[in-house]
C-alpha cells in the first residue's frame, strides 16, 4: 500500500513537471551553498497540536569551501508556556560525490547534527530542531534532471534525555531512523531573462520516521511553495501532515512553516 502510494506520487510529479528545484523546504539537498557564502534564515513553525504553538528558528549558514558547509540554529518557542529560548543546533554537511552534466547533476553528501533543548520529553518522537537534545548522522543523495530535482535522505537519530527532563509515565525518546523523499520543480520562469525575475518553485516531500526498537512509524506528506527574488532571497511556505502510522505525542504532526532566507555570495575570505 505504502509503496504503491509512493510510486503514484513519483509518477505524478514526474509527469506534471519539466522544471524543478532542489531548495527543499522540509529537508536539505546534497548540494551545498557556494563556497565562502553566508545565508541567513528565519523560520516560523506553527503547530496545531493540543492548541496552537509557535516556534521561531533563526539560522546562520556558512560555507567554508565547495564541499563543507554548516548551519547554526537557535530555537525559541511558547510550547512550554511563555515564549523562550529552548535550545540550539549545529549541523554540518560534507558533499563527497558530484557528477555534473549539462543541466543535470547527481550529488551525495554526509551530514551530522548535534542539538540541545531544554524541553521536557513526552514522546518517543525525536525532533532535533527544537524538541530534543541529541545527535543525528545521515546520507543524502540528490538528482537534478534538467529542472526536476529528486532527493532522498536516510538518517539515524539518537536522543539524549537527562533525568530532570524525563516525565514520569511518559514514553521516552531514544533512537529513530528518519527518511525522506523529496521532489521539486520550477514553475516560473519558463524562459530566463535576467536575475531579477522571480522564480517560483513547487515541492512535494514525504517524511518518515521509524523507531527501530518497536517499529512505531509515521509518514508525513509535506507540500510547499517557494519564491526566489533577485536570485538571492528565498521565501518558503509549507505544510506537513501525517498520512500513515503514528508515534503518540509527536509535536510536529500538523504544522505549517514560513521561512525567509537571505544569501550573501562569496563574502567570506
Amino acid at each position, binding site marked *: 500500500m505504502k509503496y504503491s502510494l509512493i510510486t503514484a506520487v513519483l509518477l505524478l510529479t514526474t509527469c506534471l513537471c519539466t522544471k524543478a528545484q532542489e531548495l527543499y523546504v522540509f529537508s536539505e539537498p546534497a548540494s551545498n551553498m557556494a*563556497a565562502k557564502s553566508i545565508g541567513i534564515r528565519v523560520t516560523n513553525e506553527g503547530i496545531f497540536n493540543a492548541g496552537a504553538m509557535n516556534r521561531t528558528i533563526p539560522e546562520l549558514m556558512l560555507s567554508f569551501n565547495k564541499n563543507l558547509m554548516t548551519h547554526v540554529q537557535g530555537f525559541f518557542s511558547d510550547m512550554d508556556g511563555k515564549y523562550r529560548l529552548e535550545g540550539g543546533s549545529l549541523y554540518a554537511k560534507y*558533499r563527497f560525490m558530484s557528477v555534473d*552534466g*549539462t543541466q543535470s547533476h547527481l550529488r551525495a553528501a554526509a551530514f551530522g547534527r548535534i542539538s540541545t533543548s531544554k524541553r521536557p520529553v513526552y514522546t518517543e518522537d525525536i525532533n532535533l530542531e527544537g524538541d530534543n537534545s541529541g545527535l543525528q548522522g545521515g546520507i543524502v543523495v540528490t538528482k537534478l534532471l534538467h529542472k526536476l530535482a529528486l532527493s532522498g535522505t536516510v538518517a539515524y537519530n539518537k536522543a539524549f534525555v537527562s533525568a530532570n527532563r524525563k516525565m514520569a509515565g511518559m514514553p521516552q525518546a531514544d533512537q529513530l531512523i528518519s527518511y525522506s523523499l523529496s521532489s521539486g520543480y*520550477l514553475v516560473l520562469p519558463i524562459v530566463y531573462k535576467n536575475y531579477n525575475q522571480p522564480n517560483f518553485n513547487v515541492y512535494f516531500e514525504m517524511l518518515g520516521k521509524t523507531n527501530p526498537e518497536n517499529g512505531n512509524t509515521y509518514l508525513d506528506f509535506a507540500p510547499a511553495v517557494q519564491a526566489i527574488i533577485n536570485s538571492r532571497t528565498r521565501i518558503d511556505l509549507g505544510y506537513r501532515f501525517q498520512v500513515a502510522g503514528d508515534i503518540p505525542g509527536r509535536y510536529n504532526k500538523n504544522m505549517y512553516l514560513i521561512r525567509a532566507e537571505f544569501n550573501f555570495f562569496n563574502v567570506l575570505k
Partner: protein
Amino acid sequence: MKTFKYFILFSALFISRATFAQQITKAEVQVNGLTCSMCSRATETSLKSLGFIDSVTPDLNRNVFVLSFKADQEVDIDQIRDKVQDAGFSIGDLSATMNFKNTAVNAEGIAQVDGNVYQFTNAKSKTLDGPVTAKVIDKDFISSAAFKKKAAELNSPAYLSGKGVISGKETRIFHLSI
C-alpha cells in the same frame, strides 16, 4: 632525441618570450550541473572575484557565462575552473579567444607564449596569427565522460595530469583544440 626535443622546446620558449605577445581576450564558459538563477548568480559572483576578469555576461538559459578580461592582467584559466567549482558546479566547455602573433606550433603541437605552454591536439608545424578560438580540453574543463574518452584517445601522461616536463621543469600544459 630527448635532448633535441628539450632544446627545441627551450628555444621556442625563449623566442616566444622575446618576440611574441599573446592575450586571451574572451572566454565562453558553459557551466554544468546548474539550472537555477540563484545558482547562476552564485557562480557569477564567484567568477567576478577574480582580479583579471573585466565582465561576466550570463546566458541563464544555456548556463553560459561570457567572460571578458582586463587588458593589462594575465589570465589564469585554472583559477576560472576553481571559481566555478567553488560555486558548487563544474565546467562543461571553455572556449577562449586567443590572440596569437606569429606563434609557432612545433611538430609535436606545442606552442609556448608568455610562459604558458599549450599543447594543440589538432594542429602542428604551423604558425598561428590573429584571434583563434580554442577549446580547453583538460580535466575539469570538459565533462568527466568526455575527458575519459579523450584520455583513451590521446594516451598521454601529460594529458592525464595536465603537466609535463618542459625545459627540465615540471610545467602546466594546457591542452587545446582549435
